[in-house]
């Protein structure tokens, strides 16, 4: 039987929302406070959902230890206490939480066994969050 296993992590990072294609004035109009040249930061919550058949011998869809290892190596070690704008992934795209969520999904898809990643949710604050399911 297929079941889903979810695990939540937190990471703290800074970013600045600024699109190179827009003028400074347009950036201020679009992004408001998030365009502050010095950046600002969030305590992000990253919720990873994997799915698969529950193995009879372990009762697990996937061992939490293996999920943790992949998330630490590919996401937390890279982005926790970092400036997202300086990461090569955001050299050519704005580190909105939409784009960050997609980036986390793509990195985890590579780091986890094929076909297990179902969804990534990134919560930027308690009041807004973003989900990506690979499509």
């Amino acid at each position: 039987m297929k079941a889903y296993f979810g695990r939540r992590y937190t990471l703290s990072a800074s970013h600045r929302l600024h699109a190179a294609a827009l003028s400074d004035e347009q950036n201020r109009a679009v992004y408001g406070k998030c365009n502050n040249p010095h950046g600002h930061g969030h305590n992000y919550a990253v919720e990873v959902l994997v799915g698969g058949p529950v193995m009879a011998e372990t009762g697990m869809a996937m061992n939490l230890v293996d999920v943790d290892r992949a998330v630490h190596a590919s996401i937390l070690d890279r982005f926790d206490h970092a400036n997202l704008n300086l990461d090569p992934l955001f050299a050519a795209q704005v580190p909105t939480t939409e784009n960050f969520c997609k980036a986390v999904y793509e990195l985890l898809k590579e780091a986890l066994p094929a076909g297990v990643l179902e969804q990534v949710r990134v919560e930027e604050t308690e009041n807004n969050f973003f989900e990506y399911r690979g499509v």
Partner: protein
Amino acid sequence: MIFLTRRATFSAAHYYWNDAWTPEENARVFGRCANRNGHGHNYTLEVTVAGDPDPVTGFVVDLKWLKDVIEREVLDAWDHRHLNLETEDFRHAVPTTENIAIAAWSRLKPAIEAAGGASLNRVRVYETPEIFAEFRGEA
């Protein structure tokens, strides 16, 4: 179609162990969860049912009824129990969060669907605020 979710909490003890394995193998796969003295969690159960609102009452299901079903079918059996030692559900299955979600589904589905209103859509079980599993009735 409306999806309606009712949350309930229960506290239970468990450990992870596969009798077919050596103690070393159990420790390697299950880590601290393999401690045979057991440990416990405050579980949160989220039960989601799906259906259309009744034209008269406006309810998909009566939430009080759903609360009672969850208490009768799940909490009465598991709350303040040792899942390995005191429940039939985990006599042959490791009480992982995945298997708890599947067992809760099996307990709830007949009672919810016998009422003829909504269908059971999803069961999610939080073992801690950071760890959860979900079952949607898929094969």
